[in-house]
């Protein structure tokens, strides 16, 4: 606050008064809400029991049936959907045949383990550096030692397909959204929709449209994985300092030249972050895709879950994490290399490229021809060891920690969550609606209030008001926790490269370890409860918030930091007066992504006792009669996301700093 008021030279008195009055006004609104709740609680709360349906839900069921019935007759299916499916199927089946599955009449894939590792090593070295090459070889060897070679290759094939298509479509769209404000405004809600609409909602219709098989799995994955690529590409282009662009324009560069010589190179770091996030998102879908028969590590996790075999699930989950880390580090190293090519004699490099290329080809040939290089040797098996270790840690945690964790859960639930939830669900719906719109107007202005009104009206329309409010309470609690963690750890990582090196793998693991793996121990620690759902949401969402904040802190120009140090700022002053204010845009993005990631875990929460919208979606996926209700619940989750995000953004814009997404 003070940083921004001093930055703006002499704000007019009216604006200043309004700014000071706003917290007060919000306080008044909240007080009115409390009084209203006390007087009117239990009235007009729009309850709907889990087994009941509204006419809208039944109608959605009918629509779903109608779509299913028309799949053989409609030309849309015959020419568009089927063609699309065939194209994607071809891509995935080709990759699977190449590395994962017996193909072309052979009992093994075209490339055996030796070939795959050689190709991965060659790519890691050619695109990145020696260090990531060692990491990549180690990681891929680990898959074999874990006894999960084939499963890993299946997951790799699916991920590569989904990420490939995502980037092919996503980066151009992101560039467009970075350049055009109109397109940016248009696509933002679409991306919110893609990222927050629970996969469970569209999994069944997808298999109806694209049949059971690799195409459906790939499409389900890329719906979720593409948004980060688009968003971060656009973000990268939009945050290029205007001065850099003006300088180029003053030199008479065309739009295309400005894009290729200034915008893209300066945005490259953020675009690479987008590629990383796309890969992470794609891998995080490996387990969900397994529900529609997508082969790979996800299947191992799901199967192990049926018997609560945490050890086996962990083994497979670890392989997913390792794959994520390898892919992430290689792409990051590739990004760095493109930006700062190492100064080396090109002749030597060319010779090495050629030499290693030949060696790689030889390895490929060997793995094509000989059994020993095709099938990973089974002599050394780490898998069972890892499983046993994970299982015993879990057992210890369950037996010895749950005595501490359960009271902790009870305290948080009783002191924080329950009152909040009672307030949201116990008040008449129109009172809550008025409060939401009022706060939106106060914090974000007329436009945000309008969006909030539409969202609230639509929420009432879904027939799931009460469930929405229950989920809202959990979401807000989880997002607050995520941002608290994000600020503390993100600032630490942004300021200390060493902390970054140590923490980043942990974050990658938290983000890509399938939630199903840690849900079982979580259930033991916190029982089936809303708190368990919140904990799972925080584990999944905090890493992205932390990474974005760390990135923002690091992007603060070194000159500014040096100047502040020279002026004698303490670390605390540096953080609060210089780094955080200058990283404001990253903070907003972190809050946005943190919120969206929390919302994307609502359904997983439904599996561990959260009830409400998450359970509605899960039930809708499991029982045909509840499909429409599940779909409505999915829409409600999206609406909550859009509403909260717009209010938060509006508030951030109004309280100063660089407005998000405003025209330049």
């Amino acid at each position, binding site marked *: 606050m003070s940083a921004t008021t001093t930055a703006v030279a002499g704000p007019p008195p009216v604006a200043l008064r309004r700014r000071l009055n706003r917290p007060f006004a919000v306080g008044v609104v909240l007080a009115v809400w409390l009084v209203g709740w006390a007087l009117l609680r239990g009235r007009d709360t729009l309850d709907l029991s*889990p087994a009941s349906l509204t006419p809208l839900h039944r109608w959605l069921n009918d629509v779903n049936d109608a779509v299913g019935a028309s799949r053989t007759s409609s030309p849309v299916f015959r020419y568009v959907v089927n063609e699309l499916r065939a194209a994607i199927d071809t891509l995935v089946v080709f990759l699977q045949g190449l590395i994962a599955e017996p193909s072309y009449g052979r009992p093994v894939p075209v490339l055996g383990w030796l070939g795959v590792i050689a190709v991965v090593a060659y790519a890691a070295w050619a695109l990145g550096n020696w260090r990531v090459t060692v990491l990549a070889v180690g990681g891929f060897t680990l898959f074999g030692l874990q006894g999960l070679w084939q499963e890993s290759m299946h997951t790799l094939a699916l991920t590569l397909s989904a990420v490939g298509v995502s980037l092919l479509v996503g980066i151009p769209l992101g560039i467009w959204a970075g350049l055009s404000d109109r397109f940016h405004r248009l696509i933002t809600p679409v991306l919110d929709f893609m990222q927050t609409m629970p996969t469970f909602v569209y*999994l069944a219709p997808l298999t109806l449209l694209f049949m*059971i098989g690799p195409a459906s799995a790939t499409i389900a994955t890329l719906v979720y994985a593409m948004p980060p690529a688009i968003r971060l590409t656009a973000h990268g282009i939009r945050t290029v300092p205007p001065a850099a662009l003006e300088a180029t324009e003053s030199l008479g560069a065309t739009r295309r030249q400005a894009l290729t010589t200034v915008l893209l190179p300066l945005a490259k770091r953020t675009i690479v972050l987008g590629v990383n996030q796309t890969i992470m998102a794609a891998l995080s879908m490996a387990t969900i895709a397994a529900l529609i028969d997508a082969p790979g590590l996800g299947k191992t996790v799901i199967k192990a879950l*049926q018997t609560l075999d945490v050890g086996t699930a962990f083994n497979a989950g670890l392989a997913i994490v390792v794959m994520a880390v390898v892919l992430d580090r290689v792409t990051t190293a590739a990004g760095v290399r493109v930006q700062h090519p190492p100064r080396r004699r090109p002749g030597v490099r060319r010779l090495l490229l050629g030499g290693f290329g030949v060696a790689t080809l030889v390895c490929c040939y060997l793995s094509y021809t000989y059994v020993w290089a095709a099938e990973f040797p089974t002599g050394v098996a780490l898998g069972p060891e890892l499983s046993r270790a994970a299982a015993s840690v879990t057992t210890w945690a369950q037996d010895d920690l749950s005595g501490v964790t359960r009271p902790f859960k009870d305290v948080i639930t009783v002191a924080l969550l329950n009152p909040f939830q009672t307030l949201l669900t116990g008040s008449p719906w129109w009172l809550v609606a008025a409060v939401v719109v009022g706060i939106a107007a106060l914090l974000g202005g007329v436009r945000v209030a309008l969006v909030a009104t539409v969202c609230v009206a639509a929420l009432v329309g879904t027939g799931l008001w009460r469930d929405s409010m229950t989920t809202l309470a959990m979401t807000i609690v989880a997002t607050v926790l995520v941002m608290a963690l994000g600020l503390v750890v993100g600032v630490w990582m942004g300021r200390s490269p060493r902390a970054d090196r140590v923490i980043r793998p942990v974050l990658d693991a938290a983000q890509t370890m399938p939630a199903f793996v840690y849900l079982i121990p979580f259930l033991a620690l916190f029982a089936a409860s809303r708190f368990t759902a919140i904990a799972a949401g925080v584990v999944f969402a905090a890493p992205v918030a932390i990474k974005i904040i760390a990135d923002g802190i690091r992007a603060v120009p070194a000159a500014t930091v040096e100047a502040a140090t020279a002026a004698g700022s303490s670390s605390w002053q540096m953080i609060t007066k210089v780094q955080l204010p200058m990283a404001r845009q990253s903070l907003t993005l972190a809050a946005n992504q943190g919120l969206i990631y929390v919302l994307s875990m609502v359904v997983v929460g439904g599996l561990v006792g959260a009830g409400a919208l998450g359970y509605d979606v899960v039930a809708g996926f499991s029982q045909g009669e509840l499909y429409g209700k599940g779909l409505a619940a999915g829409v409600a989750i999206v609406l909550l996301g859009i509403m909260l995000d717009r209010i938060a953004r509006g508030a951030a814009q109004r309280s100063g700093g660089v407005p998000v997404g405003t025209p330049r």
Partner: protein
Amino acid sequence: MRRTITRTVRLTGVSITTAAALALAGCGGAKVGADDDAAARSVDCGTVNLAVNPWVGYEANAAVIAYVAETELGCKVTKKDLKEEISWQGFGTGEVDAIVENWGHEDLKKKYIDEQKTAVAAGSTGVQGVIGWYVPPWMAQKYPDITDWKNLNKYASLFKTSESGGKGQLLDGDPSFVTNDEALVKNLKLNYKVVYAGSEPALIQAFRQAEAKKTPLMGYFYDPQWFLSELQLVKVNLPPYTQGCDADAEKVACDYPKYDLDKVVSKKFADANGPAYQLIKNFTWTNADQNVVAKYIAEDKMSPQDAAKKWVEANRDKVKAWLPKS
């Protein structure tokens, strides 16, 4: 300059030598496809697409059917891991031939058997499904009368949790199963709140912890289920089921019916009347049989194939009765 050239030459030499060494070292051992004699033994059985729904009992049925189909009839069996709803969808698109353990699902039967006519019933699996409210064994021992629903209100305060809002908690579980529990609680005037755990693992974990820590728990569960061989949960007796007592979902005040778990196949698959179809139609065994195979898979951690093999070898006579008569 001179040094660069020497270094370049040396590096090239190194990489070429490595490649050559690799090539030489590799040129030993068996070649891919050399010992490949596994061709389909029988042509007339063809491929069977078996849906595998995500629970161990189903996996046991599917494993045994697949094993017999492959070894006795020479079929190629493709197992597809799918949820129920999506498996039924697969009948229409031709991607699923058979579902081999179906729990009720009257709505799906109506949609796919009666209306779309893409599926047909293929008889009972012989396994009986029971749904109900269960407590961990320690509770049944300590409070013997808890198994009568009339006493539940007396114990309601025991079951309070952070989720149940002051009432007793009734933990419901897997959304795949039909539940009347909210109506039951209301109509039997029980001072309980239904809390949705949301998944089978959540329920199992809850019961496991309740028994280990001797904490109170009552929850929705079902039999057959592999977990019951680890922990013999005790069923609470609700007012007995009578024909039609659950006709109106709002007014249900009786226990769940017993489910005859059955098989459903695609119309095309049935019409072709191949050996695999006859096997699936004839397949029938008992809860005890299924529990044995489920235990092999869930507790002894055998692969479904190995579990099926072990059971089939011990039960040749039962298997013989399923094979097509020809």
